[in-house]
């Protein structure tokens, strides 16, 4: 059985005049110790996916339907008490900005010890020892001293390591990392990613990595979901998706990277913008930007279905895979 199983998850936001669907029937699984990447641009719904897994969606947002089964228990229907037990213990989350995730008025030690005591029957001294061990695991030099420091005394990279240490404090089975290195420099990002990968592998922890950076996904994950306008449009093994993307959007996303074009040449851009959630076009949400769109695409939403090794939500994928006449526009 998979560790996490999301079925038909739909999240809506009740806005002033209308209800906006931010996530539309998302389904995926994460096996024990598996590393899954969720890729998409801003507005695709990838962060909302992360938040809803922790049941952190708050008004005006709500889970409209669907279930999130963590080890067979539905997170959506869980009581607040059970949720509190679960968060941090069975699954924990790493947020984007290390500068605001830690409480600035508590020392690192207080924050770590409090977390431990809230979930485990330990003495303060035992909790402190565990904290030191965890800090050492994330390569924090002289962890005993760090415990008595305040977050502002540490650099961004150091803070993100401490946040990872806190996320690992209770040996969770799943870590959800929402753009964990976007706020950091590339050299620091590389260190943090390597650390995260190493810890997940050695502790057999599942990882859901939410990011916009295809390079990071490629380095870190085994499987990838590509999201667009609140839907999963492509899912499969990361290598397959990076090397041989099937959905026109995924293709466009990869081709738009500067690495994919000779220096000084025009980049292969995707025209237009991601639709805002209040104004999603009928049919396939990608159709106004898609060069292969047909009348079917403009009226019917494609279901996600298996094509070869990957799952794709595209009417035209069979034709594209056949390498068929790309110019032809069926009437």
């Amino acid at each position: 059985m998979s560790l996490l199983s999301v079925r038909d998850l739909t999240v809506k936001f009740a806005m002033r005049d209308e209800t906006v669907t931010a996530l539309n029937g998302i389904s995926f699984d994460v096996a024990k110790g598996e590393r899954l990447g969720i890729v998409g641009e801003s507005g695709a719904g990838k962060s909302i996916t992360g938040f809803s897994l922790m049941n952190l969606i708050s008004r005006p947002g709500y889970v409209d339907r669907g279930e999130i089964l963590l080890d067979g228990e539905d997170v959506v229907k869980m009581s607040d008490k059970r949720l509190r037990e679960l968060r941090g213990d069975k699954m924990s989350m790493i947020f984007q900005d290390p500068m605001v995730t830690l409480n600035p008025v508590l020392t690192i030690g207080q924050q770590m010890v409090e977390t431990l005591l809230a979930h485990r029957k330990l003495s303060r001294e035992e909790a402190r020892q565990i904290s030191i061990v965890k800090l050492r695991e994330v390569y924090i030099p002289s962890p005993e001293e760090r415990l008595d420091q305040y977050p502002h005394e540490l650099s961004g990279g150091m803070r993100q390591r401490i946040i990872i240490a806190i996320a690992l404090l209770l040996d969770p089975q799943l870590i959800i990392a929402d753009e964990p290195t976007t706020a950091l420099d590339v050299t620091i990002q590389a260190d943090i990613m390597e650390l995260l990968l190493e810890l997940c592998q050695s502790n057999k922890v599942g990882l859901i990595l939410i990011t916009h950076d295809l390079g990071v996904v490629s380095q870190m994950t085994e499987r990838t979901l590509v999201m667009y306008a609140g839907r999963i449009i492509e899912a499969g093994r990361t290598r397959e998706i990076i090397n041989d993307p099937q959905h026109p959007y995924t293709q466009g996303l990869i081709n738009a990277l500067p690495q994919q074009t000779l220096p000084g040449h025009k980049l292969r851009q995707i025209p237009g913008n991601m639709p805002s959630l209040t104004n999603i076009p009928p049919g396939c949400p990608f159709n106004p930007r898609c060069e292969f769109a047909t009348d079917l695409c403009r009226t019917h939403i494609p279901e996600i279905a298996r094509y070869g090794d990957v799952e794709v939500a595209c009417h035209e994928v069979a034709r594209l895979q056949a390498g068929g006449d790309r110019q032809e526009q069926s009437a």
Partner: protein
Amino acid sequence: MKDMNVPPSPLVEINALEKQFDLDQGWLETIKFRNGRLVRETRAVHAVNNVTLDVNKGEALCVVGESGCGKSTVARLVAGLLTPTSGEIHYDGRRIDDLSRAEMQPLRNKIQMIFQNPYASLNPRMTILQALEEPVRHHNPAYSAAEVRDKVTEVMMSVGVDPSWAKRYPHEFSGGQRQRIAVARALTVDPEFVIADEPISALDVSIQAQVLNLMLEAKESRGLTYLFITHDLSVVEHFGTRVAVLYLGSVCEVAETATLFSNPKHPYTRALLSAVPQLKDDRPNHIRLKGEIPTPINLPPGCPFQSRCAFANNRCSAEKPKTVQQPDGSVVACHAVEEGRLEDG
């Protein structure tokens, strides 16, 4: 320190540029109590230290580095938004860093700037039309209303913004569209030299390509020269003619783009290049840097990179390396490169 094989014609010359920001707000704060005595000491952030760079006509010079390396400060100094602590900036042979606002006026339509955040760089209370007409009117007071409108329409078309949207306000546009409008605004005055401070880092991947293409196109059709500030090395490889790598306000390496990417010399450049996540990698694969970045408040003597460099020795901690020209034309500031310690180290 000047480049030896003099390139065709430098449009902008930056000479030994320094910028320090005082941390103490006012005289009273500089008084400190030390060892039983009152002493006066000032603390300053050394944002830019002795930077010398040339930007040649028609090229795109990319300045890369991590946060806090002073790359944005360099851009703002060249744009005249900040005044240098010392050093000189020449534009087309004329010194511009000490000009008053009135003296600078004729140059204001030659040097333009594009900013990082398209959500903040357009005045939210002005329509697109107002925002675009204002600079045209300001720099061409003799233009008739029709000429102003023609100019604005021409620029809007050239950046791919439909002129029929001119009456809208910035908040009605997406980030990518706003950045197009910001580019259009810079182009309304027909500049020669455009400083772009991280113009695409706030945008989504698919939109980045659109704006980058737009800037490349403007470079070709209008013969622009760019000073392009970024932290994204894959953009540099694509966009830059030459690259300058900055670390803690000092130049590490300046080279032709192709040379830098095929044969990086400075240890920091190497680490930086290896840290960029590549699509072909299936696991992190980079040169690990030890230690932490020192603060730019109290810079250690010697090489700014020594605390994180695997090749640092005593000389590196005592003496700041000078930039030295390499056989392949790149300029590197590193004792280890100079002494040939890297290849066998």
